[in-house]
């Protein structure tokens, strides 16, 4: 299980990095081709956006795993250690619930675009459901990261109990 988690962490962070790299590379290439070859791609802006959106959701899952999302910590910090851990479990469960609802919402969005055959407004006419797949995927990622955090916090709570007892 640990190995699977490690491999997934690597894939996820690398994929987020690749998306940013591709967005930058396309944007840079656009400038070069426009000025040196007088040519602009009709698909560039659209695909840059897709890569940025994918990197945001993949990156957000990574940030969730590292527990670095921006949050208000000052009030929870006032609680005793045990209370902090319990509130931590509660918020991690909320993330799981959010993840599941986000997955359902994302699936509905993708199905809607798929069944109505929505395509992008640009000349590329990309079927919109393909880039939108990141939404249900993000739902799955948030759910798993939430579960991972629930596990972590329960373990920390147990360890705290053992330390207090000894």
């Amino acid at each position, binding site marked *: 299980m640990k190995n699977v988690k490690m491999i997934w962490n690597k894939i996820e962070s690398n994929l987020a990095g690749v998306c940013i790299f591709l967005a930058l590379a396309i944007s840079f290439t656009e400038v070069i081709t426009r*000025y040196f070859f007088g040519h602009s791609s009709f698909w560039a802006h659209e695909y840059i956006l897709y890569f*940025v959106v994918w990197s*945001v959701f993949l990156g957000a899952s990574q940030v969730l795993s590292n527990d670095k999302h921006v949050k208000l910590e000052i009030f929870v910090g006032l609680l005793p250690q045990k209370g902090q851990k319990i509130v931590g479990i509660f918020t991690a469960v909320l993330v799981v619930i959010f993840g599941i609802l986000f997955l359902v919402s994302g699936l509905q969005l993708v199905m809607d675009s798929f069944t109505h055959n929505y395509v992008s407004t640009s000349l590329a006419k990309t079927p919109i459901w393909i880039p939108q797949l990141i939404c249900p995927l993000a739902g799955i990622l948030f759910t798993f990261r939430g579960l991972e955090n629930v596990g972590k916090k329960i373990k920390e709570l147990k360890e705290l109990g053992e330390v207090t007892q000894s």
Partner: protein
Amino acid sequence: MSLSAVMILMFLGLLITGLPIVFCAAGTAMFCFLYFDISTLTTVTFRMYGALSNYTLVALPLFIVLGVVMSKGNLVKYIFSFANSILRNTLGGIGVAAILTSAIFAAISGSSLANAAALGMILLPFMVKYGYKEDFAAGILATGGTLGILIPPSVTMILYGALTEQSVGQLFMAGMLPGFLAIMVLVITVIILAYVKRDRSIVIEKEPVRISEIWTEFKMAFPILLAPIIIIGGIYGGFFTPDESAAVASVYCLVIALVLYKSIKPKEIFSVFREAAQSSAMIMIIYGGVTVLGFVITMSRLSNNILERVVGMGLNQWQFVIITMIFLIIMGCFLDVVSVMLITIPILYPIFMTFGFNPLHLAVIYTINMEIGTITPPVGMNLYALSGSTGVPIQSVVRGVLPFMVSMVIILIIVTIWPELSTWLPSKMYGN
């Protein structure tokens, strides 16, 4: 209970549990959609995906890549060495050089946090070596770091542009003169503090400044000094869009860091993108979540209700501005600046517009408010970034920052009273 009341209570309730802001915002919206039957569950992803697919935002991760290249490549130290070679034998000269270095770094990177952390790591040991007390040096560097979000390019301005549908190019220009004003005021503050404190421990080099030394340092810093010219010149010369300028400047800085300064190794290149992906995701995902909540805010007519109350209380626009600023600074004590901006803009922007404020002027006022927020204890992010990167205790950083907060408030007052400082340059360049 009304929609507004449920929304506010639920959002605040979730916030104090320490749930990440993005989930507080999107979760509250989700609940309101279903409980009040005002929309469907699909709206959540539809709105979030749509908000993030805003082309204005593309510049944000690309400028963050640039900031990461600057930090990882230690490029700041060459700018500082150049500035210091000119100012080193004046009292407070190193401090002034640090502020000027911050300003140049700010003209390349768009983030205040990256700015403070990178500068702190490199410049603080140098300043301490030359007799600067840790708190004074930390105060200079933490405040200098805030210039990152005012001087173009600026992450805050990009987000404001995306939220309010303003041109990022014009917003960048609006921050230019207030940015210069901020540099001037901070430089004067450093000089005054150095003189007033008569800090005898500060070592002033007796050796006169030599042109040959300045020339050598200039040659070393010159390739980096070209980066802001590429960005600003590229955007306003009509060569690039803001996101393209970030891409070109990122590639340029990456190449010079790899080839010329050899401060980034080829195998480290990919880590730049991984780091940038995480840093930009942290900001942009909040934008996505808050946009979904923004839909509920609009449905709840919260802005209109606040406006009616404000008018009912007989407040004029300036009284409203003062109350809002105090409120924003207090919020900035508890939350990071990006979140404060993203949460409050959808509610307050329509009210400011009703009062006849210029959107560019408002952007600058907001940004300076946010700058003050980044150095306001107990949560000011720059304080922690600097403390984290240098090991200086947070209390010392706070002590050092306090006199600079007064300067920042003075800058805020000047910029608020004279809207022309923010609007003159964009109107000259883009017309009215």
